[in-house]
């Protein structure tokens, strides 16, 4: 085999191996951890249910017992939660960086995502889909109690 062809084959195969590994890892994550990524609401979600409504420009959290909180989410460590997120007006995007939780808030298209906080503390929470004048103020804190 000519060295040039060999060289080209090596760089194609090497790239293929790395990318195939990454793609397979991603697919296995998707097929086993489905509840941890945003999906259309419905079915029987695991854990405690919290309804979230985004509107210009705040987040509203409604707990099962009727408690309503704005721009503040209080959770208990080592408990599984499922949030169902929707919007009153434009598209928003709820994002809790430290939990790796991100889910769009779309009017007429409620989404759910589950997560289990395991470390008590105070974290940040933001809207990361541009939504108008006070988009940057659509943020708050997440408190995880022990």
């Amino acid at each position, binding site marked *: 085999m000519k060295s040039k062809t060999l060289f080209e084959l090596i760089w194609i195969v090497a790239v293929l191996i790395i990318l195939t590994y990454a*793609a397979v890892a991603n697919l296995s*994550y998707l097929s086993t951890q489905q509840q941890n990524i945003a999906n259309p609401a419905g079915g029987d979600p695991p854990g405690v249910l919290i309804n979230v409504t985004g509107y210009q420009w705040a987040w509203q959290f409604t707990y099962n017992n009727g408690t309503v909180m704005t721009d503040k989410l209080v959770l208990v460590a080592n408990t599984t939660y499922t949030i169902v997120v929707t919007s009153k007006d*434009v*598209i928003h995007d709820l994002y809790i960086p430290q939990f790796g939780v991100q889910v*769009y808030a779309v009017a007429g298209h409620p989404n759910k995502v589950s997560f289990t906080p395991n470390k008590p503390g105070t974290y940040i929470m933001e809207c990361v889909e*541009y939504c108008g*004048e006070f*988009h*940057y103020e659509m*943020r708050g804190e997440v408190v995880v109690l022990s």
Partner: protein
Amino acid sequence: MNFSFELAIFGSTIAVLIIMGFLLYFFVQDYRKSLLSKEMETAPKEQANAYLSRIRRELSFSAFIMDDSKSIGIRYLITSLAFFFIAGLAGVGMRISLWYPNPSYLTPIQYNILLTEHGTLMLYGWATGSILGLGYYLLPSLLKIKKDSLGVLNSIMYWFFAVGGLLLIFSKSTASWYFYYPLTDQLTQAGGGQFSFAALIGVLFILTATCVASIIFLKMIFLDRDEKIRISSMSLFVWSIVATAILIISSAPISMIADGMVIYDLINPIYFTGANSTALGYAIMFWFWGHPIVYVAVIPAFGLIYELLPKYVGKPVYSYSSGVIALLLLMIFSGTVWGHHLFNSGLGTLWDMIFSTTSFIVAIPSAITVFNWIATIWSGKVKLTLPMMFILNAIVDFIIGGVTGVMQSDVGVNALIHGTYWVTAHFHFILLGVTTGMAFAAIYVLFPTFTGGRRYNSAMGKLHFYLTAGGTYVMTIPWALGGFEGMPRRVAGYFGIFQSYQDAAAIGGVILGIGQLIFLINFVYSAYKPVTISNDNILEEASS
């Protein structure tokens, strides 16, 4: 009837304008005649235009009245450079305003106007416009075209492009370049801006011009080129334009339809609301074009790298065929990855699986392209001129931008970094390093031709390069680091914990801005020096 003073002023103004228009037309015809050779003076317009677009041509405002391909190219280049500086000013303004966590000298509305102008003008005005300009300018000489028809259509489409850009500037839209549905139709200052529909019309104008120009590029390449140039030996820049044009024609119309539907929804909301659809319908239609446009912005830059690299290395491209195959694969795969912009929008696990896998696949032709460049550099000896510095920086920036990009294909990682400055860092590496860098490299290479035999100031050029490349790193590396910690993008203010990242990025942004000013000074200063060299350039060498 009494003598009316106003009527007299009005009448004489119109008379003066008509006379000025006539004189302008006369002077331009004179200039055109001076460019033509003896036997071409009496030739039909089609052939005369073909001759005009094959010879070396200076930058001149006469191009705005002539309609051969080179003139159209010059029009696009001048206009897109103007848009680049306006949008760049908006970008630097945003950076400085983000020095403090709370909105400082820009109110949130002003910030959002600059945000929208920066995004739309940089992508539609500068990236697309400079590619159209270079395409119109270089294709006729690279292909030695035999006839240059459709000049009037080209000219009209250019004016569509220019008016579209002006609409984007003056609409003061705050809808950001996505123009996501419910926000764009909120015609208030707090929502999408009172005239966001004007910005949408501007986008439609620009996309119309882009589509028509793409069809004309394909016509030039496949129908009008010289018979001696076989398809299998066309230059790689021409191949990159083929890939770009097909990509534009196959994806832009979907977004244009969506824009039209949004405009209709202003009057009678039926498309993206109601029982059958949600606001995500617009997002899906938008990203069908919204992702290909970033490939539209880089593939011609790849072509320029392929074209220029051998000339500074002294060896031909390492593998011509794998270069062509990689460009065409990029064209095919990049049309299939757009869904990765909507991973977290709840379109289902299957959606995520399909588009994350295609996003991994699109990295393969990109990697082949980069390896091809590296092998070319390896096989020869590098001559480190100013354009070559831009090329090397483009390759490094593309590797960084590509790796930071392919990481986002993983859905789990995507939930962590989507919507943060990580994404901004990723595409600024590519759009600043590759698209803008290669456009500047091409301008520096073409400078003697643009100015009729003048040499740019090398020291100022190098300073421009170092400030641009350095400013890119100073600005984007803090973005990437902050983005990984959750620093959201498109915000007029932010949590205090991110201030160090934002301040570093602000310094980088100012460095970048100063660099571009130096480019402008260099251009104007060098263009009026005496003629010292021939007006030939290595990019159009093939034509002669």
